[in-house]
């Protein structure tokens, strides 16, 4: 399935862009924001919060000549067959809309049987691929391996790094062991293990040792699908059933009480731009699927309402996770800042959501970045690196 920029995407992206809190992109240091996206007077911008032009301009120091944007085709792969197909399509067309506005020749393709012929046909072969597939076969890295075999440059982490980050228990273990990051205590339990050792015995052990409240989630997947906060012991069985509807292995984690924050990172020629930690506040305290995907009563604070040293620690932890997991170009890492001010690593996403309710674009807009410019610079950064030859 391919669609040109001229049809579906244009309409959707334009309509959606009209709803974007655009004023966030019009601010500069010292200005008050005039916006429908902010409900209270926005404090004066400071250098800490403003766009880090240094990160961008340093990257631009690589002067490798590139074709004109209008002659450079970027293929966005979105959709796929995972549970997050809907969100992927929205992310893909949102990013594509901004790139088109910045002058790129944007195309879209689903992940289906016509994709590889499309990529290899000289008439349709793109200059750059931006995989925006969420969920299995997108974030697990498999499509990225194929892109490398096709010798096509793409935006985002390589396959093995994606696979590591995709598996939440493995990612947690890596950042804890290698990076000394804090992570909530957890165990990883395949459904089969319950069958072999006994449900009651395992669940009693979980409640007795990890202690309530617990967070049960599939070991892979996003958008909080299949995730349950368990506050009473008798909720645990149902939480396991709901989790195993999405995956055959569950991560059972001690739920950490604290401030939920998310840190997005973009890399330009290997130099990271760490966006300010974004704090998420939901009315019921759970950032579940509905809260993520419905514009609703969730509030975001950029940067998070934390002491400066804690903000710095969270940013440093996110950067460490990005590096230790060998992530590339773009990532978003989620934390809970606990009662002692320690960022507890939850997960890193190699394909963070890019919809109009997603966290990375919100953090970038609130910091004063123009998304069309930001995404364009990321694309140019990848194109300059001549990754195919590498």
């Amino acid at each position: 399935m391919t669609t040109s920029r001229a049809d579906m995407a244009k309409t959707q992206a334009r309509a959606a862009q009209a709803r974007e809190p655009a004023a966030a992109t019009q601010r500069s240091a010292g200005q008050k924001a005039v916006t429908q996206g902010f409900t209270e007077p926005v404090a004066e911008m400071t250098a800490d919060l403003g766009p880090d032009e240094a990160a961008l301009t340093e990257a631009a120091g690589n002067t490798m000549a590139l074709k004109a944007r209008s002659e450079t085709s970027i293929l966005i792969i979105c959709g796929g067959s995972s549970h997050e197909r809907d969100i992927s399509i929205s992310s893909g067309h949102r990013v594509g809309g901004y790139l088109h506005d910045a002058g790129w020749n944007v195309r879209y393709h689903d992940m289906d049987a016509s994709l590889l012929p499309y990529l290899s046909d000289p008439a349709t072969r793109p200059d750059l691929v931006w995989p925006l597939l969420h969920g299995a076969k997108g974030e697990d890295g498999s499509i990225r391996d194929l892109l490398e075999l096709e010798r096509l440059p793409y935006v985002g982490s390589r396959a093995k790094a994606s696979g590591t980050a995709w598996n939440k228990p493995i990612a947690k273990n890596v950042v804890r062991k290698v990076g000394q990051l804090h992570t909530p205590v957890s165990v990883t339990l395949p459904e089969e293990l319950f069958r072999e050792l006994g449900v009651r015995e395992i669940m009693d052990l979980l409640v007795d040792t990890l202690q309530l409240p617990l967070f049960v989630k599939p070991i892979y997947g996003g958008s909080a699908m299949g995730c349950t906060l368990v506050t009473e012991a008798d909720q645990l069985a149902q939480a396991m059933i709901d989790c195993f509807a999405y995956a055959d292995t569950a991560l059972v984690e001690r739920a950490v009480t604290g401030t939920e924050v998310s840190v997005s990172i973009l890399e330009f020629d290997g130099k990271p731009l760490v966006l300010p930690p974004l704090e998420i506040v939901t009315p019921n305290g759970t950032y579940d699927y509905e809260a993520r995907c419905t514009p609703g009563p969730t509030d975001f604070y950029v940067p998070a309402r934390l002491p400066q040293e804690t903000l710095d620690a969270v940013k440093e932890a996110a950067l460490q996770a990005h590096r230790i997991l060998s992530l590339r170009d773009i990532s978003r890492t989620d934390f809970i800042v606990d009662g002692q001010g320690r960022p507890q690593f939850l997960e890193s996403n190699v394909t963070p959501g890019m919809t109009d309710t997603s966290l990375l674009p919100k953090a970038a807009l609130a910091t004063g970045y123009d998304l069309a410019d930001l995404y364009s610079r990321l694309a140019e950064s990848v194109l300059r690196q001549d990754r195919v030859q590498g």
Partner: protein
Amino acid sequence: MGMADETQTPTTVIRNDPWYDSYAQRADAMRASEIRALFAVATRPDVVSLAGGMPYLDYLPFKELSQLIAKMLVDKGDQAWQYGSAQGDPHLREDVLQIMELEGIKDIQADDVVITNGSQNGLDLITRIMCDPGDVVLAEAPNYVGALGVFQSFQVDVVNVELDKDGLVPESFEEAIISQRKLGKKVKFLYTVPNFHNPAGVTMSVERRPRVLEIARKYHVLVVEDNPYGLLGFEGQTYPALRSMDAENVVYLSSFSKIIAPGMRIAWMVAPAGIRHKLILANEASILCPPNMSQMTISTYLDNFDWRKQINDYRGMYKERCETMDAALRTYLPYCSWHKPKGGFYIWLKIPEGLDSKAMLPRAITAKVAYVAGTGFYMDGQGSDHMRLSFCYPTPEQILEGVRRLSTVMDAERKTIELFGAGRRQGKGTDGGW
């Protein structure tokens, strides 16, 4: 962790939706859900979708019809591209008379007909003019999900009326009227899909129809008869429309969506004079007029093709698919139960006790088969023990494969449920004749 100190970087507050506090109460239920998101996967060709109620359109003469439409758009361009009447194109209103005749509605003229933008528009109009928030609509349980959405948006209380293999149960209808009036509620109308019900697949028996109308007259309760499937009886059989038996107490809705093509978004209503006048004014306020181009396209088709044969061809095709699904269910899911329909698009499948069709859907999507969980057809959380399977769009081969995949999904879910059974949450099953 302490509070932010005085040297803290100023914080920007972003509300995810700055208008969240401004919405009408009726918008409260309009929210994203995991289940809704999962259906995006059902559109992929590698997924066998037994979910959607889409007619199979390959029997339509696309090429010949396109040529005639192209000519029509030139010859009658000044009408096709222009605004039209809120009541609908008079030519099409004449056309639909011959369709209604097939189900016994003979005492009407074109002026009695109101064309709508699909029956969904018609449901919206009748609810808009009849119901205030808190009023009661009586409806078969389970019920068409699109109607529930309309009722919900007008903050109407939907009260269930029992449905069994012979359709709506008259005694339950009467009891519901009495009990609601005792509570001081205003019962505005009964909503019924008498033929090849969506989702239940059943048909109101001919014997029950006069009784339902008698009760409606006795208590002065309007009957809204929604009849999109009436001409799709597998053996060509039709049943007398409620409207054919009572012109004063029935509002009749039917549609071209299932018998020709839903893309045109053209349907029609017949209502008693007072209601009809209100409907026309409400239609004008809502959409100004149904699209002329779509109405004229339908007329072009009706005037130039043997639409009776086409509908007959559809019957044969849907019959074959229903037979295939019935056989596949008996082979792969013998522990489920269902009434085999005699027409329409759907089988309403009761799944084994303990399974929850809504909770099981992610597993089904992973296995590349989709269905609609029974909970979507109730306002009160019932239906977790049922699912709606559509046989209208997938080919017989796809139906076989889809049901086979469904059996593996149910097997896996049953094993998980049995494993964790002791402490699990029990879904809300269904009351009444199911």
